[in-house]
């Protein structure tokens, strides 16, 4: 029976000791430990979550980069094609312009030749006239002592010149 009767002294000391232990630990012990462990778990959870998000974003960025690179390739091909066509076009234009120029020069030359021919012909005509006159003079000096024969000779010469033209 004495086992089941609590001793007052021991009750007092137990109350004192347990109370002090409880106060000390409730203030400086347990909140520190459980708070830090919970902070650590939430930190780890958040880190895991943000690592996952960063991975996802990285994936997205990779996909976008690949798309950009593909588009850049297409553009490159297009630009090359355009450049080739433009080159052909320029050459063609240059050829056309050159041939036109050549035609114009040819025309001009032709005209020039015609003009020169005319002038040369005119000169030659003049010369011929002169020479012929001289010849005629000489020939006709004899004949042209006669006036009538002079007029007849001139008319015949003029008609012959006119018809030869």
């Amino acid at each position: 029976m004495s086992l089941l009767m609590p001793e007052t002294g021991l009750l007092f000391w137990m109350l004192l000791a347990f109370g002090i232990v409880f106060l000390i630990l409730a203030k400086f012990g347990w909140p520190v430990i459980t708070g830090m462990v919970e902070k650590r778990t939430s930190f780890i959870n958040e880190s895991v979550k943000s690592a996952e998000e960063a991975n996802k974003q990285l994936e997205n960025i990779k996909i976008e980069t690949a798309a950009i690179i593909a588009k850049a390739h297409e553009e490159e091909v297009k630009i090359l094609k355009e450049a080739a066509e433009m080159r052909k076009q320029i050459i063609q234009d240059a050829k056309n312009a050159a041939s036109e120029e050549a035609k114009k020069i040819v025309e001009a030359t032709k005209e020039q030749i015609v003009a020169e021919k005319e002038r040369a012909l005119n000169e030659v005509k003049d010369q011929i006239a002169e020479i012929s006159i001289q010849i005629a003079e000489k020939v006709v000096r004899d004949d042209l002592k006669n006036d009538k024969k002079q007029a007849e000779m001139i008319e015949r010469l003029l008609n012959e010149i006119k018809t030869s033209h």
Partner: protein
Amino acid sequence: MRRLFYILFLSVFFSVNICASTPTEEGEKINVKEIIFDHIGDSYEWHITSVNGKHISIPLPIILFSEQSGFHMFMFSVFHHEESFKGFRIGEKDGKYAGKIVEVNAQGEEVRPWDFSLTKNALALIINCLLLVFIVLWVAKWYKKKPMEAPKGFRGVMEMLIMSVHDDIIKPCVGKDYKKYAPYLLTAFFFIFFNNIMGLIPIFPGGANTTGNIAVTIVLGLCTFFAVNIFGTKEYWKEILWPEVPTWMKAPIPLMPVIELFGIFTKPFALIIRLFANIMAGHSIVLGLTCLVFITAQMGEVVNGSMTVVSVLFSIFMNCLELLVAYIQAYVFTMLSSVFIGLSRVESHH
């Protein structure tokens, strides 16, 4: 398995042989019951060992407050030389106050003064509490130094234990506002666990049967009692005093309220008695098995040799069982306290 059996058999055999050659001697009868109750109970000195018949023990301070003569404080060693000191003496062996300090009051009766001595259990309590505070604060110091790292070694084990109690017992059983009650429940768990473990260690700072003493468990049970009933919600009290049962159970003769009121007291009482009886019974068994050796010492050497081996083996087994019981009793106390607290924080269902 067979090797173990061979080792056991050979040890019994050899111990029998060795002991059979020494002569027997007369000794006094061993009073097992007295030894056990001595070790389990409280005392004014801490008996460490006995060398050659001389007792080596630490005398402890005695603090008395007597109604006749006022406040006294002295060491227990005065009673080694004198029978009575300043009117106080130790109660006689088989009387009502066996082993405790008594005095004679004005009417000539033997009464006990107010006894606040630092007995063996009180000193052991203080030592264990200091150890507990020291260990927990040492663990908490790590978190101030390195907040985001996991601790290693003994600190890691302590953190694992603390968080397992916090996450597996307190959080699910208390419910929503577990943060308010977690300090008390954690303190209760570790207090009981440390005291149980220290009670299993045979030599000086350990070896005192603290949690097997009814006063210690009464305080623990009272703390749970107050934690449950003072912080109980209105709904909790309503369910006790006016439960939702058919009216004939509550109105003219309040049957259910009386049963519920009884329940308020029996639940902490069960906690008290469970812890006390488990630990006391465990220590008694270990002590009894150890006394087995001394009992058989008088019956002859052969019996003594073989029973020593048996007793040692059983003691090993019982000590391992007591380790398990130390943890389980702390676990069950904390779990039931948290369940009761959770039940008292009930919200209205409507």
